[in-house]
């Protein structure tokens, strides 16, 4: 994966962006024209095809944040730090989508916008942890101490992901268990649309994380140049 902060954008990165866009468009076809209407919930069930893959995108993003943070603490290289920042931000975006689309579905299915179900609560907790990480890293150029503290926070946040995942199986709650071992599964066309959606969101998450890594590395390069320019007394004219 090329992460050069400057110069021409890598062809692979551009290709991934085009693929992500094409797959997201095709996903709309799969969801609205290929997958049948659900018997009991009706059209509101279509939220499922973006809600669950968004949760998966959240796992990928937060997972990358945890991985990048752990490797940064070991290696102390900018590249891993950039991956951690990118993963946390992209994961938070998908977490936000999950937390917005979930209540919209719940209003129809459960009659309430929100309930303190284990999965809902743990998802919101993960969102708060990584929101804290993003806030911490957004206050200008973080020093080494801030980076290490943020890395530890991301690793702590990583431990909540398996709790979110298994919460519907281990604890009693109201969240559906359609695609878990305890669930009854999906109709074949619904399953095809769902799997395609998962794939599309994987490509999208990869593209967004890579884009954000490029952005973060460029910002770090800019900071280094600013320091150099300041040392030479060139920043006063700017």
């Amino acid at each position, binding site marked *: 994966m090329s992460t050069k*902060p*400057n110069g021409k954008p890598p062809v692979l990165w551009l290709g991934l962006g085009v693929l992500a866009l094409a797959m997201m468009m095709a996903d709309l076809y799969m969801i609205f024209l290929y997958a049948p209407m659900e018997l009991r*919930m*009706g*059209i*509101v069930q*279509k*939220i499922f095809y*973006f*809600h669950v893959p*968004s949760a998966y995108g959240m796992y990928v993003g937060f997972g990358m944040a945890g991985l990048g943070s752990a490797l940064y603490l070991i290696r102390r290289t900018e590249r891993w730090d950039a991956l951690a920042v990118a993963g946390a931000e992209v994961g*938070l*975006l998908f*977490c*936000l*989508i999950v*937390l*917005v*689309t*979930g*209540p*919209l*579905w719940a*209003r*129809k299915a459960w*009659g*309430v*916008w*929100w*309930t*303190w179900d284990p999965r*809902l609560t743990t998802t*919101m907790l993960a*969102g*708060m942890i990584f*929101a804290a990480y*993003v*806030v911490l890293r*957004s*206050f*200008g150029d973080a020093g080494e101490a801030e980076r290490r503290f943020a890395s530890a926070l991301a690793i702590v946040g990583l431990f909540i992901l398996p709790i979110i995942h298994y919460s519907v199986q281990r604890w009693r709650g109201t969240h559906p268990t359609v695609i878990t071992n305890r669930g009854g599964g999906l109709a074949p066309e619904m399953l095809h649309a769902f799997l395609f959606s998962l794939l599309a969101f994987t490509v*999208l998450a990869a593209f*967004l994380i890579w*884009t*954000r890594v*490029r*952005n973060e590395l*460029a*910002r770090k*390069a*800019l900071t280094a*140049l*600013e320091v*150099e*320019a300041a040392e*030479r007394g*060139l920043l006063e*004219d*700017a």
Partner: protein
Amino acid sequence: MKRTLASGLVAAALLATSAPAVIALAQDDDGAEEIDPAAERAQTFEAAEEGAQTENIPGGLLMVAAYAVIWALMLGYTVSLGFRQARTAAELARLREDLAAGAGGDDDEE
């Protein structure tokens, strides 16, 4: 300016993330009470004078709202990334030019 914008975006993200908690707190806390299962069942049937008063939650509207939010968030984030990248690249190019010019000036002085 950049920091103000970033802080604003982070504040908006935090606000949106904590929105479900606010919604939950705003709801009635009936669910927390011990309810007699028998009391939950209908005990009387009343005649409707002007049609049934059932709650009709518009599923289509909720679905449209969900997809609008999803696409707005994803497109908004992608566009913001593009702007950030373009701005950083422009700053990098300008600083490199300044540094190169400065280095040239230093050479001339020597």
